[in-house]
């Protein structure tokens, strides 16, 4: 890897780059899926290549190549430089990078059991056991999946950084779907849309106890078919930690991406309502709301040693006791604020340009508990596990649906309810938050389908979250 990186940097310099960095990436992904008692799919995917990024004439250029021979690297470097020169024709300002120290370092995800060392037999046996647990009358589709990712990468820059990292991800999940005339209901565990995934080893899957949760979610899916519809009205809303994590993702993580604020994503992902003149002043949420970007959190999908610009992992407060205090930044965007980079730049793989991405955007634990929140709620709903999500391009107007809910009456969890939706506007919603559960209920969750950028990049990001409560929220059935 080292030789490849040195050749790529030399080639970029020779082609005229004022600055160059490259990432040499080798990635292995394994997916195992069981459906309705049978192995549906076992796939291994290996991916390797080099991404070369340059600044020439004050503009960026990027080229990704699988070829690691001298001619291939030189060709890619020359194309990156040519692209940068072409881009410079429209430049209205030259790219400036916030200073970052040159670093020589290594980092590896701490794992107890390498997920790639666990036999396929063991993985299939686990999923078949969970599948059998979900096999209850009324369930028509049972899905179980396991995933593992190993990403070995060398980052090298013309400023002298040489950083080697090995990131390991492991995940698993279950889905049970029940159908009846005119209705389809699904329940997932531990999270919806694929699986729960973390940077850790196979021990993370063992701790999930997938077989032990299969029957419960299957029975809940069946019960939902005949459950009453979610009530409509303005009421107290309590979210489980998984839905709270996605709420943070959409309404805090994305709007604090500084590239969105500067218009870089205006034609696609959108912009943000959090403008720079609001920093340090704007009341984003109540005093119960503190949200950090923390690439050092244990187990998060945004946990690493250094980002894809060679900036060290760090913790930044985005929202401090309700006040908007920080952005997710890159070296380029931070330079505009005469600040150092927050170290939040990542690329999906070798053939994609690094962008500002969420690391672990964490809702810091509070002092309450789910039990206490329910006990002190007269009328409301408690909702679990995301089913649908949508938010406008400035990250204000949102609507979420969850798989399941329970009505709360006089401090007690009452009847099961189906098809719940809630909606709101971001600052008003977070200002209505009056309780967040404490550390004992705080968990790290993974989102494995965060899309951004063109060409599209799907990033894995983390969210630490705990159950939390909101007052006066619009709730209704789908």
């Amino acid at each position: 890897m080292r030789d490849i990186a040195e050749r790529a940097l030399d080639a970029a310099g020779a082609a005229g780059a004022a600055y160059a960095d490259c990432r040499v990436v080798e990635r292995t992904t394994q997916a195992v899926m069981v459906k309705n008692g049978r192995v549906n799919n076992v796939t291994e995917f290996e991916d390797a290549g080099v991404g070369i990024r340059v600044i020439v004439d004050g503009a960026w250029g990027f080229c990704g190549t699988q070829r690691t021979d001298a001619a291939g690297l030189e060709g890619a470097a020359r194309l990156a430089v040519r692209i940068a020169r072409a881009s410079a024709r429209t430049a209205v300002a030259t790219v400036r990078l916030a200073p970052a120290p040159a670093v020589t370092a290594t980092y590896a995800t701490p794992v107890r059991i390498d997920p790639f060392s666990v036999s396929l037999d063991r993985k299939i046996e686990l999923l078949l056991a969970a599948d059998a647990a979900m096999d209850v009358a009324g369930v028509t589709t049972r899905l179980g999946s396991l995933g593992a990712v190993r990403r070995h990468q060398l980052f090298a820059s013309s400023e002298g950084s040489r950083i080697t990292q090995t990131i390991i991800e492991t995940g698993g999940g279950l889905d049970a779907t029940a159908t009846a005339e005119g209705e389809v209901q699904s329940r997932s565990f531990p999270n919806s849309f694929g699986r729960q995934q973390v940077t850790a080893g196979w021990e993370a899957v063992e701790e999930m106890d997938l077989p032990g949760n299969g029957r419960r979610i299957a029975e809940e899916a069946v019960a939902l078919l005949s459950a009453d519809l979610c009530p409509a009205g303005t009421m107290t809303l309590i979210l489980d930690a998984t839905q709270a994590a996605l709420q943070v993702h959409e309404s805090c993580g994305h709007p604090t991406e500084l590239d969105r604020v500067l218009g870089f994503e205006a034609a696609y992902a959108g912009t943000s309502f959090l403008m720079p003149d609001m920093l340090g002043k704007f009341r984003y949420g109540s005093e119960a709301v503190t949200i950090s970007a923390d690439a050092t959190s244990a187990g998060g999908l945004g946990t690493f040693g250094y980002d894809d610009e060679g900036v060290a992992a760090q913790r930044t407060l985005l929202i401090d006791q309700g006040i908007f205090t920080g952005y997710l930044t890159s070296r380029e965007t931070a330079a505009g604020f005469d600040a150092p980079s927050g170290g939040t730049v990542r690329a999906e793989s070798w053939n994609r340009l690094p962008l500002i991405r969420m690391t672990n955007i964490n809702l810091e634990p509070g002092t309450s508990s789910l039990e206490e929140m329910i006990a002190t709620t007269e009328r409301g709903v408690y909702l679990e596990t995301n089913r649908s999500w949508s938010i406008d391009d400035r990250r204000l107007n949102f609507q979420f649906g969850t798989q399941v809910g329970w009505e709360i009456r006089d401090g007690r969890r009452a009847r099961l309810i189906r098809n719940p939706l809630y909606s709101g506007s971001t600052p008003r919603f977070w200002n209505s938050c009056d309780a967040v559960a404490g550390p004992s209920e705080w968990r790290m969750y993974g989102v494995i389908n965060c899309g951004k950028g063109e060409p599209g990049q799907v990033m894995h990001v983390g969210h630490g979250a705990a159950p939390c409560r909101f007052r006066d929220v619009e709730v209704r059935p789908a």
Partner: protein
Amino acid sequence: MSSELRTREQLLAIADRIIDRTPAGTEAEVTVTETATALTRFANSAIHQSVADRALRLRLRVVRGGRSGVAEMQVVGDGAEAALARSAEAIRAHSPQGEPVHPIPPDGGADIEHGYSEVTEAVTPEERAEAVAGICAAADSLGQKAFGTYETAVTGVAMVSTTGLHRAARSSVAELIAVCRGGDGSAYGARHSAAASSIDVAALTAEVTDRCARNQGAVATEPGVYEVVLSPYAVGEMLQYLGLVGLGGLAVLEQRSFMRFGERLMSESVTLTDDVRRPEAAPLPFDGEGATTRPVRIIEHGVCTGVVHDSVTAARAGVETTGHSLPQPNSDGPFPRYLSLAGGDSDVDSMVAACQRGLLVTRLWYVRPVHPLRTIITGMTRDGTFLIERGRVVRPVRDLRFTQSIVEALSEVRSIGSEQLSTRGYFGATLAPWLHLGRFAFSS
């Protein structure tokens, strides 16, 4: 680095070599895909990101003794093909016996390249920058700022199997997306084609800058149920989600689809087909298991008539595959590849004139299924929403959230435009006209 793709013969030769590495008595299917993508992004009337990459991806599926294994590699160099064969066989050997999906035999379909252009493959970074510079200059001259992308991509795919499959084809797409922003409002427009030379940059620029000028100073309007005049961008997005939630054979088999064959669920003017033979689709002529993709009549005059199939759902349903498979095996089932809503005899001006009070919607954004069986989706309007009163567009309005059943919306069709526009979205491309609907629910 040359952007030229390998020829079809070269891709087939790679696939043949991989087949030769599989053990005797093994059923095997190889897919070799090469893509070269170049994309220039602009924001605030300047290029801020511009990239290129080329990747060769190998996929091998082996079946023997009731066991199946799949391996994929996006790696080049000595040993990659042998490693792929070893990996697939190792996975197969460790998989339990079951009823694996077998590679299909050839169906005699021709590898006609309906959507490939050498012109697109030859577009240079300088040419992309020049086109972008023109849009930026036009926007700047009107006090607007330009944002968007200019992408060119070419793909070559070869599929070979031990069952006799031996086919290859290429496709290309050039797409220009422009968003212009003024002081208090924005507008969107996009064009794509297999041939970059077919994109009318000037027309797109005029469309977007004009819409941006008209979409300044939007005022709030109350949510509620409105008549709507939807642009082809919005209609295309809606059709994509209809395909996602209900037009695949597996969704029907698993009772997740709204389709009730033989019943009229939509207005009589609605006829929906899937046909990748149209050049705007930039299609490959075959699907993820090598079956020729055939046209499918999905809705005829409002009546549910068909869904798309792969070999697995077709066998369960007792029909022939329509050639809409994802790579097998998979748990998602087949999906439409290029939905087309048949044009009518109207146009946007006539639709507006016929609307007493409604909204003209340019674009839908962040659409997500809320209740797939009932085809309820939610999302936002974006980049140009206008109030219509007494047959005239009277002012821009702030964006609204809609929560609406697609099937119910298409059961209230007032008129359909005669011209169709090919639009691309997250799930592929569609061919859509302007559409005047009687009811569309905006919730906030």
